[in-house]
């Protein structure tokens, strides 16, 4: 829980709200579910949308406000616009050192809500408002798609080897260990495409591969200088593959859409303009649907990378993507290859790349110079 600040303008004290997930359907949550919930916790978001098959969630709501506020009452407000749901509950006061703390347990029934449920607390002193918390959002289904954040991918580290402590998840084990590699050391990575629980493509890094472990990718750990470039290139390799997987999966989905419209166009029942409008709408509908794990925002983002000159027309870009998927897939792949390099331009993403390149040129010219400077890798997507 973040620390609270002191008194703000108009005599209203800054305060805080925290919501913890304790149980689902009266059972204490697993580490996996807790891990999903915690994903958005720092942003005041509770992600129950990524947890299937639950009917009720036991939540602990905590409110904090500076003692100087002399707060004597805290009221929790719970609201869901999609179902016109509202509840309002007084929290119980439990003082601690410098802050006044309130808490309460609340059971959220899934049948009463949908999409986003908001939790906020108003703090009072003698009926006068002295603080108001931020809003904590709990997402109970996928009506609202996750935002595109700084990373398109989720990194996970496993041993692909059999019988190891941190073995790769069950659903992929047989494929990797039995069909492709009995010892599990051969591959450096594996990709798990988005599903009901994981809305990002997951990059599984194989820690059984000699020399690879999680610390290699932890920027806090200082690596020997000579290994940094290798590490960064390796990371780029992972991401390059991941982007290609994501791009191909998306293209397969797009390719399958608009079939009837294409037939109508070929029978000259609709114009190309109509085709463009309707295909765009169909693709948008598909990716806006909560049954599809990818968001339309992501599709639009990728389309901009594929067709960088069409900055103004989202519809044109999406239509071009669909149109090429129907026939000229080669051009799409070529475009994607270039698009990827605009995102992962080594000259921009690898610090001091130019110096490194210059050193290579100088070496060719017989001028060795000083190439000892650290070329720190800072790659993100």
């Amino acid at each position, binding site marked *: 829980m973040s620390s609270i600040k002191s008194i703000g303008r108009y005599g209203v004290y800054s305060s805080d709200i925290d919501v913890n997930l304790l149980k689902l359907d009266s059972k204490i949550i697993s580490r996996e579910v807790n891990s999903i919930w915690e994903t958005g916790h720092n942003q005041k978001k509770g992600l129950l949308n990524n947890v299937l098959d639950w009917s009720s969630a036991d939540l602990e709501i905590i409110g904090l406000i500076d003692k100087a506020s002399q707060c004597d009452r805290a009221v929790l407000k719970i609201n869901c616009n999609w179902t016109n749901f509202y*509840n309002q509950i007084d929290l119980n006061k439990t003082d601690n050192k410098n802050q006044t703390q309130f808490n309460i347990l609340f059971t959220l029934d899934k049948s009463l809500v949908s999409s986003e449920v908001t939790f906020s607390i108003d703090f*009072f002193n003698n009926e006068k*408002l002295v603080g108001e918390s931020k809003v904590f959002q709990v997402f109970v289904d996928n009506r609202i798609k996750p935002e595109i954040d700084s990373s398109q991918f989720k990194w996970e580290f496993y041993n692909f080897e059999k019988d190891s402590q941190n073995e790769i998840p069950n659903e992929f084990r047989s494929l990797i260990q039995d069909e492709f590699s009995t010892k599990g050391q051969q591959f450096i990575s594996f990709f798990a495409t988005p599903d009901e629980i994981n809305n990002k493509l997951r990059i599984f890094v194989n820690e059984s591969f000699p020399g690879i472990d999680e610390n290699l990718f932890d920027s806090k750990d200082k690596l020997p200088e000579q290994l940094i470039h290798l590490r960064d290139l390796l990371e780029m390799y992972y991401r390059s593959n991941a982007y290609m997987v994501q791009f191909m999966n998306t293209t397969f989905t797009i390719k399958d859409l608009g079939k009837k419209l294409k037939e109508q166009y070929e029978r000259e029942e609709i114009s190309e303009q109509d085709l463009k409008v309707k295909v765009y709408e169909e693709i948008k509908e598909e990716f806006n649907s*909560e*049954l599809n794990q990818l968001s339309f925002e992501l599709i639009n983002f990728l389309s901009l990378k594929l067709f960088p000159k069409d900055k103004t027309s989202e519809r044109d870009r999406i239509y071009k993507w669909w149109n090429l998927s129907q026939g000229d897939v080669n051009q799409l792949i070529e475009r994607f290859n270039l698009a990827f390099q605009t995102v992962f331009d080594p000259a921009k993403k690898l610090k001091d790349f130019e110096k490194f390149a210059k050193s290579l040129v100088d070496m060719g010219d017989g001028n060795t110079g000083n190439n000892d400077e650290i070329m720190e890798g800072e790659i993100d997507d």
Partner: protein
Amino acid sequence: MTNLEILSYQYLKRNLNDDNFMDYKPLQDHMLEISDLKKINLHREINIKGIQKVFQDAQKTEKVRNFLGLSKEDFIDYETTFTDAYVGLNLHNLLRLSPSEASRPEVWNSIIFSQPHALQYLHYRKNLEIVDESKKKKLTINDLFVTSTMGNIHQTNRLSWPWWVVEVTRNGSSYISALDAFKSTTYFTTRYIQSFLMHQRPIAIALAQYFAEFDNEPKRFNKDRRDVLATSGTDGLGQYSVALKDYFIEHRLFKNIEIPTISNEAFQIWQKNSSSFSFNSGPEDFKVSQESLEKVFKIFDEIGLKRGWLKTI
């Protein structure tokens, strides 16, 4: 078939248009699989036995009037709103939807596009106020198809919207306050109903009663009174619920008004029972006492007094 089969929203959206929707016949391929139904919280079986009769009877004036217990005089000028009340009350009691289920466009589209009587009713309802046969209008896809927007589900579609009016304004098992909401006509059922303040059960129920019963005179006959909680917009029309919002923003809470916690357990027991409508046959999942409602009335009076309204009585 007694259970509603849920049609794919995307299939309907992509394939139905003004030229073909009247001839549409649902096929198995168009239904959502259980895995998809779970994702959208629609995996409970929804019993629709008797729904055809609801739509048939809704087109018979006498049936509607008798059901609501209204005199001819009370009924005649407000036939449309009372027809909406009939449909809303019956669908609420028959379908026994949870709010989560009722928020899904898939539910309403599945009823509309799998029940020919629903189409007939919606055509009847569209033309209810048009006397001249030659001016009656055909249905369009936009009259029927429920889009995935909150406004369409809560406020526009002529099946889902009356359901939501009933849900928001019923007092636990009692549907009497829901009928009051319809008596207050569309300024209440489509305009006030949009306000987030209506999420608070005591406010929604009290408003419905307040407008319908104030001074024992139906509110609908008195425009000045109905505007008690409105402010005048730049277009001269009442901006309903603005005064209430102002009050709420100032006070943060409706003082001393207890917001009931809804018992999902009681609601589920009601869901499992078979439907048999009476005005006291809703779920016993909460109850706002008349004492609490009186406190809300006082708040309305207080706001009205500040706005000079009581001077006109």
